[in-house]
């Protein structure tokens, strides 16, 4: 049966080791040498060792374990984030092995097994399936060669289906040839055709042994996700459900709501242990500014954390508060010495010439607010540290299981009078899924910080510890996706050709200090901005995302970046980093120009996309797919305004992320009196080049669009001069069921648009995949792109309905009503 291998194995074998329940299954590997041979999916959890950390990526055995029953377990480190990526990886491996999807299993992800660990989000399949594709292809070739010898039939006369090799009237199963044995075969340039190290191949890559796309029979079809049945039955183990014998419960103690960067307002000046003396078995853990409580019963830990009397140092780190944010942002970057105001793109005098030659120009300012990660389930981690300082087992939902060991080394060896080992392999990282992971996965609170904190607490109390964060930890202490503002002037000719644009952007860098280590006193903010190991990275690349989709025109982009010090919220990369922000501006001003030159907004976009290039063709495919599926009727936007308070409109918006293109047609209803926007329907077209799993992609498209809708329409944090104040779902709401539109999902290939119905088993885009491959459309990511397009699609639809532009997110009743009042229609 297809599915995850579950933790039952370790709960019975590892933790009951002393009870005599250990099952030794290691003998078959005796005598083999090298990392790749040390552990594969057949090695019981309890028998894996630090020597198995990061096995050799060039060995087939590091990726694929063939069983005697003719099934395969895949040891790819891609963790399930709800994206369905493991399901997609199994499809790829089944494809290259000529096996059935039902013959595939996915090994549980941990650092003492997988060659590459952790999830890569949107690019999990497109960027990280390249080596396993060749491992599977080489495994097939190896097995066919063995069959040729055994059957006495030339390789050329053999074929494989469902893992059975046939030819010359004879047949043999993979499992009979090498089941439960190792391949002991290294991938090389000679046997894979790839000169990369480790060898890699994109789908059908010429010159490699990867299967031609035209022969795909699994990829491009619909397979149900392997994780869904357990999630629906309540038997799935999330990180929050991990339980270790003897485990105690921990909570972090800190003020509700973080302060600004460098002014966390989490320094406990005094702690009164007598304030929780009535709570049984409670312990306080304090190291520097790191403060936590531990108790045998979870509810006792919760109460202790709430009840513990602490006097906190409090500083005014946010000069602006949320009420004055936008006006503050306009000048905040002027004095930034680390990222001073600067040109990030410049076409020179062609910009002035283009604007001067324009028949119409539009000048406008767009604002896209901070958005939180806002997982429904607060982060959790479990740590079981060894009392002899020799390492530990750590359970985390982080995407970065292979980078966390080194982080744990830093944390543990940095403890006062530390005796902890500095060998990262001794810190075993076991992954379990958390609630929706939408970025910042390897850094920040959604990544390593909870497990670092759990490790420190476990080491301090010398017991296994489950650390569960609370709702206010998420709303108040998690990082945020950046807020951006854009002043834009753009011009177009009378026939709708964009002539030039001048962009002034106001942005922010991410703040990548490790909050756990900061509280522990192991790292500090540099005394001067930009100095030291936590210097901000530049926003250049991210700030340049967008600015007009595929449209080519002379442009100048001047970027101002608010200083990391002096009032910035902690920021990290939230799903489709910076794309919702920049496309909210770029795809609205394009719409404004279309209106200015009296053109249908779709026709205007078409004029500006160069369909002769591959990338232009991909853009046109989604524009066509979305507008055809939506039954788009060309007209100038807002040219047929309805009377009355309740009106409807339709708009289009485009965007890209992870190299995939999206176009969304949005239908909305607007209440002109209240400013309430109700999205009615979204027609979403996305192009992934070669689509691995159309159902997987369809779910991603729908989810990214709805989450993007929430971000653009509903979400913004609040803060005062001291700290973040929007600490729950009332004060920082997200989109609710009643406001959620219906969706039509279209998977686009060259001149072929497939409507994906969630769960439909007959979805098949194999022909489209072949055409896409032949046109040079590369496989691209699926987890994020609609997020780039949705905000502008809604705003453009509101304009069509009312003739009023709403250029500030969130598009909530207050902001929309404000725009209506300014325009005199409300």
């Amino acid at each position: 049966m297809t599915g995850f291998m579950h933790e039952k194995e370790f709960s019975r074998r590892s933790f009951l080791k002393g009870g005599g329940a250990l099952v030794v299954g290691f003998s078959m590997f005796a005598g083999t040498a090298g990392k790749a041979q040390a552990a594969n999916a057949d090695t019981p959890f309890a028998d894996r060792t630090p020597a198995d950390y990061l096995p050799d990526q060039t060995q087939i055995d590091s990726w694929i374990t063939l069983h005697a029953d003719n099934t395969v377990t895949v040891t790819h480190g891609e963790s399930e984030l709800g994206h369905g990526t493991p399901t997609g990886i199994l499809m790829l491996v089944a494809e290259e092995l000529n096996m059935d999807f039902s013959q595939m299993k996915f090994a549980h992800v941990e650092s003492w097994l997988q060659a590459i660990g952790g999830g890569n989000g949107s690019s999990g399949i497109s960027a990280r399936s390249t080596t396993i594709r060749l491992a599977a292809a080489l495994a097939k070739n190896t097995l066919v060669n063995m069959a040729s010898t055994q059957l006495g039939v030339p390789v050329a006369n053999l074929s494989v289906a469902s893992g059975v090799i046939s030819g010359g009237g004879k047949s043999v199963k993979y499992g009979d040839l090498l089941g439960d044995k190792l391949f002991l075969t290294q991938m090389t340039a000679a046997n894979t055709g790839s000169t990369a190290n480790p060898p890699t191949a994109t789908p059908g890559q010429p010159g490699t042994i990867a299967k031609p796309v035209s022969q795909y029979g699994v990829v491009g079809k619909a397979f149900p996700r392997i994780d869904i049945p357990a999630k629906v039955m309540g038997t799935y183990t999330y990180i929050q459900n991990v339980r270790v014998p003897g485990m105690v419960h921990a909570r972090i103690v800190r003020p509700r709501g973080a302060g600004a960067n460098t002014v966390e307002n989490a320094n406990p000046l005094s702690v009164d242990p007598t304030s929780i003396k009535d709570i049984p078995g409670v312990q306080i853990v304090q190291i520097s500014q790191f403060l936590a409580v531990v108790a045998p019963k979870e509810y006792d830990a919760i109460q202790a954390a709430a009840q513990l009397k602490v006097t906190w140092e409090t500083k005014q780190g946010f000069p602006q508060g949320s009420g004055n944010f936008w006006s503050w942002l306009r000048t905040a970057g002027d004095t930034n010495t680390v990222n001073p105001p600067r040109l990030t793109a410049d076409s020179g005098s062609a910009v002035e010439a283009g604007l001067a030659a324009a028949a119409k120009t539009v000048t406008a300012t767009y604002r896209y607010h901070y958005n939180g990660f806002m997982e429904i389930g607060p982060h959790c981690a479990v740590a079981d540290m060894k009392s002899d300082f020799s390492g530990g087992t750590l359970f985390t939902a982080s995407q970065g299981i292979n980078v966390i060991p080194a982080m744990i080394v830093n944390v543990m060896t940095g403890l006062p009078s530390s005796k902890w080992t500095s060998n990262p392999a001794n810190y075993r990282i076991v992954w379990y899924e958390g609630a929706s992971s939408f970025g910042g996965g390897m850094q920040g609170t959604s990544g390593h910080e909870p497990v670092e904190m759990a490790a420190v607490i476990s080491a301090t109390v010398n017991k296994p510890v489950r650390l569960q964060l609370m709702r206010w930890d998420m709303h108040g202490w998690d990082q945020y996706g950046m807020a951006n503002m854009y002043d834009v002037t753009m011009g177009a000719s009378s026939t709708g050709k964009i002539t030039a644009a001048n962009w002034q952007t106001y942005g922010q860098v991410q703040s990548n200090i490790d909050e756990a280590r900061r509280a522990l006193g192991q790292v500090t903010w540099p005394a001067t901005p930009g100095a030291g190991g936590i210097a901000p990275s530049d926003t250049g690349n991210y700030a340049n995302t967008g600015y007009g989709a595929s449209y080519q025109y002379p442009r100048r982009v001047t970027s101002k970046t608010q200083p990391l010090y002096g009032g910035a919220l902690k920021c990290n990369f939230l799903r489709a980093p910076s794309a919702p922000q920049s496309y909210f501006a770029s795809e609205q001003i394009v719409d404004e120009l279309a209106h200015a030159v009296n053109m249908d907004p779709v026709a205007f976009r078409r004029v500006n996309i160069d369909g002769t290039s591959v990338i232009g063709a991909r853009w046109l495919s989604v524009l066509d797919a979305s507008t055809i599926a939506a039954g788009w009727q060309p007209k100038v936007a807002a040219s047929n305004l309805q009377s009355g308070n309740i009106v409807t409109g339709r708009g289009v918006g485009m965007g890209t992320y992870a190299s995939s293109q999206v176009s969304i047609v949005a239908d909305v209803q607007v209440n002109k009196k209240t400013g309430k926007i109700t999205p009615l329907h979204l027609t979403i077209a996305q192009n992934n080049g070669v689509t691995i799993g159309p159902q997987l992609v369809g779910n991603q498209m729908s989810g990214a669009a709805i989450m993007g809708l929430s971000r653009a329409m509903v979400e913004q944090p609040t803060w005062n001069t001291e700290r973040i104040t929007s600490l729950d779902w009332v004060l920082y709401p997200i989109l609710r069921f009643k406001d959620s539109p219906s969706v039509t999902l279209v998977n686009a290939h060259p001149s072929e648009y497939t409507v994906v119905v969630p769960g439909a088993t007959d979805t098949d885009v194999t022909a489209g995949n072949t055409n896409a491959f032949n046109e040079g459309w590369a496989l691209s990511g699926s987890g994020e792109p609609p997020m780039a397009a949705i905000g502008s699609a809604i705003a453009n639809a509101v304009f069509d309905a009312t003739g009023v532009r709403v250029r500030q997110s969130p598009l909530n009743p207050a902001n929309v009503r404000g725009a209506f009042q300014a325009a005199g229609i409300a």
Partner: protein
Amino acid sequence: MASKLKIKVNGLVHSVSASLDTPLLYVLHNELHLHGPRFGCGLAQCGACSVLLDGKEIRSCVTPVAAVSGRAVTTLEGLPALYASERGSSGATPVLHPIQQAWINVQVPHCGYCQNGMMIQAADLLSSTKNPTEDQIRTAMNGHLCRCGTYPRILTAIQQAAAAMAKGGS
């Protein structure tokens, strides 16, 4: 102080040790090791922790364990048996409630963390409203939050489940 309590969960009576004010969620998760109800906010705002109490949806994160004494708690894990008993069917308990089957058919979950509450609320809705309109579904589900944006598929799945239940199937 911890007290000895008896609570009825998914048809079985369990003896548990907890202070009377302990929210039911922590007893279900830590004492009975049930994974269906999940911690989301502890504030009754999101619905990840929902269970059925005598067939009606409640938020287990704010319901003291003492308040469910003598009443029947059903978690996600208990939905198939509850459906079988409601139909008065004898024989083996089905593996899935029609709602769970519909959730798989439509491939509803993304991360799935909130889906416990979604299915529990849907069970409450469909036990009292056999053939709900879209508006009735949206109203019933409005108190449950999903970050991954699965609302459209949930709507479809509830409609499918209602149709399946009307036919008496599973």
